[in-house]
């Protein structure tokens, strides 16, 4: 199979769905003729034209609110919020409107929309363009959440998200846009809520998501040289959360480290470990550890950012402590 970048996979994933379903439309800032600030919508405007790919003003509330109204009335909009930090500007729609409307109307309306956004740090964009905010969405019942780590998963999860009759927030990781991987075959769909085992191992389970998957894999390679075989689980989605795969892995390894980029304070790993404490306590032979973002805004300087975002070195260190437990 040919290789493609994660960034190319975003445009390809959207294009595949737009070819299949004429009700799929895109809207966002600079996504049309300019092809996106991260070049994640390259080719869409050219192929589908201005009635399918819509440039908007800088109006995050109007972008997501209009996507919601369109989703309620027969379209499948894919709205882009340029940087995930900007979700705060339209948070009402993510927190109060989109996830609640189906429930509070007793199931009268359906909101099949996707909000895509570039998430996370590592590129030196500073505090207001770098935060990993997947945990913001994770606090809201009624949103599905996907966060792919490979080009193939970008395409597969976008397909599932766009076809879903539920609202899905897709966190694309800025630090992964340039990464490469095999291009998936036509018709590739990754169902929402199915984790993948990115690496098998018998000694410790590393649960990761998006940017922390390559970090966990890198740590696992180093640990293997020391005779520790880490199993790496790529959650791929936070909602639905595939805890079965995590608990089954723990039944084999009995040790758990969660690797998450969002801050430790309120990060998604807290929910994962609380479920393990509730339902998998007997599977454990060591304390649970979380390697998470530090509880500070993202700093600018490389040397500082590296202290805040999880690294393979920190994962290796923590796994070393558990192995000796």
């Amino acid at each position, binding site marked *: 199979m040919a290789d493609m970048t994660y960034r190319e996979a975003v445009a390809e994933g959207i294009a595949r769905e737009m070819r299949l379903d004429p009700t799929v*439309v895109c809207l966002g800032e600079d996504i049309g003729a300019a092809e996106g600030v991260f070049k994640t919508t390259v080719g869409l405007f050219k192929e589908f034209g201005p*009635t399918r790919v*819509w440039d*908007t*003003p800088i*109006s995050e*509330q*109007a972008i*997501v*609110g*209009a*996507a*919601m*109204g*369109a*989703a*309620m*009335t*027969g*379209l499948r*909009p894919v709205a882009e919020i340029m940087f995930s930090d900007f979700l705060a500007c339209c948070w*009402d*729609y993510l927190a*109060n*409107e989109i996830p609640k*409307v*189906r*429930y*509070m*109307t*007793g*199931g*009268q*309306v*359906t909101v*099949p929309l996707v909000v895509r956004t570039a998430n996370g740090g590592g590129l030196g964009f500073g505090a207001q363009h770098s935060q990993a905010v997947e945990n913001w969405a994770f606090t809201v*019942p*009624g949103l599905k959440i996907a966060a792919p780590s490979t080009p193939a998963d970008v395409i597969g999860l976008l397909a599932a998200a766009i076809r*879903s*009759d*539920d609202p899905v927030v897709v966190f694309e990781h800025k630090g992964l846009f340039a990464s490469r991987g095999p291009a998936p075959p036509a018709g590739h769909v990754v169902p929402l*809520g199915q984790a993948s085992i990115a690496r098998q191992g018998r000694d410790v389970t590393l649960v990761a998501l998006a940017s922390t998957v390559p970090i966990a894999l890198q740590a696992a390679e180093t640990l293997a040289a020391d005779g520790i075989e880490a199993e790496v689980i790529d959650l791929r989605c936070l*909602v*639905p*959360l*595939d*805890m*079965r*795969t995590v608990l089954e892995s723990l039944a084999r390894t009995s040790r758990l480290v969660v690797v998450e980029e969002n801050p430790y304070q309120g990060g998604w790993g807290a929910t994962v470990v609380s*479920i393990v404490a509730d339902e998998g306590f007997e599977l454990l032979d060591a304390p649970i550890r979380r390697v998470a973002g530090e509880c500070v805004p993202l700093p600018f300087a490389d040397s500082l950012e590296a202290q805040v975002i999880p690294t393979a070195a920190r994962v290796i260190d923590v796994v070393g402590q558990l192995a000796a437990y």
Partner: protein
Amino acid sequence: MNDLLRMYELMAVIRRTEKAAYDLFMAGLVKGTTHLASGQEAVAVGASEALRDDDYTFATYRGHHHTIARGATPEACLAELMSKATGLCGGKGGSMHLTYAAGNMLGSYAIVGSHLPMAVGAAWSAQLRGSEQIAVAFFGDGATNIGAFHEALNLAAVWKLPVVFVCENNLYMEYTPIASVTAVANPAADRACAYNLPASIVDGNDVLVVRSAVREAAARARDGGGPTVLEMQTYRHFGHSRTDPATYRPSWEVEEWLSRDPLTIAAAQLSKEDVAAADARAEKVVAEAVEAAKAAPPAEGALTDVWADGSSTWRT
């Protein structure tokens, strides 16, 4: 039956349904809060008369009138307020979220201004699908000071969408006179020029005047002429919500507006016999609705309707 009589009767049904809601609240059968639209019925009824059945409407927490005007029954509305399984939203919404999707009344929203962008999106969808439907957002004067209002008007103008923005200017945002917190005299109409949109100020208590204003705006929208802002001048007869005695309103103002009650204005153009007969029918419909809602079983299903498959399952 002539149009005006039909509209009068619908207003009478709405008036009595809200009176019933108030009485049921006092009897302890409705909980939470209610935001009565009594006094503002002509906006909902006149506008609905001007729309196609498949046009979309979006309303606020003060939305009983808009829900019934689009075809929801008083029984389903009252049952919703009374936490009954037969309520419009199965008891999951309540007074502030009445929704009647079967009539394309796509919801009542309680975050001020949030539904204006949704109406823009519904209009965008109609335009892309070539359905010749339009969308209408009803909102209060207070909503004109929140960002979503401005983002919605600009986007609708730029994309020339078939949407009508209908402000119900009842002079107050909660307990504060709108004039004291707004830089322009007419909170919606005076903002329209910033988005190059046509606007008019309309007598919102005269159902025929409302209907013709909305007809004109709807025709413009349907013909590709883009959005219109209509500012309906009206007044609520009661306080902002259930617990508000509205003592901040001068009595001369209240009296002046009570003398301009939309039902009285419509009745003055009808025969006494017709009005009496319509009142009697409205009385009966609402009395029966109250009894049926009282007799209905309680709401159930707290863990359903989150996802499209009907479940609330979020993990394996």
